């Protein structure tokens, strides 16, 4: 692998891994707080899936980088501006409708993305994608069911979910951000074309939101910059909590 591809692939794997790590952490904040016991377990399970996926993706990122950094080094010893996750996943967990809106919009993208990544020409990534795709299929089934249930539920659940969808819509433009990193990897069949995934994502989200009697928002202002390390104020606070143990006791084991 030439140097240019290596650098691009490291950057790309950070995007994937950081999305899953940060979203997994945000979901874990529901543990003990979900509306009902069954949902508490469901969200904790999905959170653990995401953190496991982040572990695999960041481990691979470290190998590609070749600087001897482990997945833990990347998760716990990078600062905010070095994270490549989307704005969407770093937002505070909000109420249950906000959590479901975010999860559904993300799952619908991830499901199409990892479906394609299963045929990546970079074999280690294709192998991870096969596992991620299977788990994401379940996550999507879960978040989609709640979109239907809350959207076509009571007046209050409908209003809350519609507001949450409107709010999170401003973060969806970034789901399909591409730059030269994607270009380099696409040319070699390592990463798929996000433009095509965007079309499929839009078809799916439109159909499911309408099934939940929700209105698909107009595309207006869209958040940007997080893929380049420009984050909202929320990520720093989250990382402080997530990283403090590892940084206070480097190399600790239990």
């Amino acid at each position, binding site marked *: 692998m030439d140097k240019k591809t290596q650098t691009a692939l490291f950057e790309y794997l950070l995007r994937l891994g950081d999305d899953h790590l940060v979203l997994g952490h945000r979901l874990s904040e529901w543990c003990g707080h979900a509306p009902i016991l069954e949902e508490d*377990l*469901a969200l904790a399970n999905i959170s653990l899936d995401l953190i496991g996926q982040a572990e695999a993706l960041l481990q691979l990122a470290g190998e590609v980088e070749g600087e001897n950094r482990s997945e833990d080094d990347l998760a716990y010893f990078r600062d905010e501006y070095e994270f490549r996750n989307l704005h969407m996943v770093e937002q505070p967990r909000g109420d249950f409708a906000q959590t479901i809106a975010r999860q559904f919009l993300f799952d619908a993208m991830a499901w199409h993305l990892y479906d394609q990544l299963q045929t990546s020409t970079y074999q280690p990534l294709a192998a991870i994608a096969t596992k991620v795709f299977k788990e994401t299929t379940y996550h999507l089934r879960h978040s989609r*069911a709640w979109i239907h249930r809350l959207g*076509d539920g009571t*007046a209050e659940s*409908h209003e809350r979910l519609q507001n949450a969808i409107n709010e999170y819509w401003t973060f969806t433009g970034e789901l399909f951000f591409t730059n030269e990193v994607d270009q380099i990897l696409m040319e070699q069949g390592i990463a798929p074309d996000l433009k095509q995934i965007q079309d499929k994502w839009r078809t799916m989200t439109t159909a499911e939101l309408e099934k939940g*009697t929700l209105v698909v928002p107009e595309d207006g202002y869209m958040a940007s910059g997080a893929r380049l390390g420009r984050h909202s104020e929320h990520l720093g606070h989250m990382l402080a909590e997530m990283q403090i143990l590892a940084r206070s006791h480097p190399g600790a084991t239990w």
Partner: protein
Amino acid sequence: MSDEKKEQEKSGQTEWPLWEVFVQPKFGAPHEHAGSVHAPDAEMALQNGRDVYSRRGEAISLWVVPAVSITATTLEDKGPFFDPANDKVYLHPSFYKVPRGVRNL
């Protein structure tokens, strides 16, 4: 919103229905009762059953059944339903010699 749901909302009913969960551990084995979950509909009941009773790989198939659909005997039925069997030894297949080497009988 469907009429049924409007009715539910008006009545202030906030507790979700109870579903009984049955887990099949492997092909050919019977579905066994694992416990119950609350859920607003059948799909959610399946998902909740999956998360509560099969997340450590205990199942290859799940059934969920609305608890109200199950007809059960009552405690008062216990005597008339089950006691007579106790003094009828001929109902038990204990008068045969089991050939050596036969297991699982």
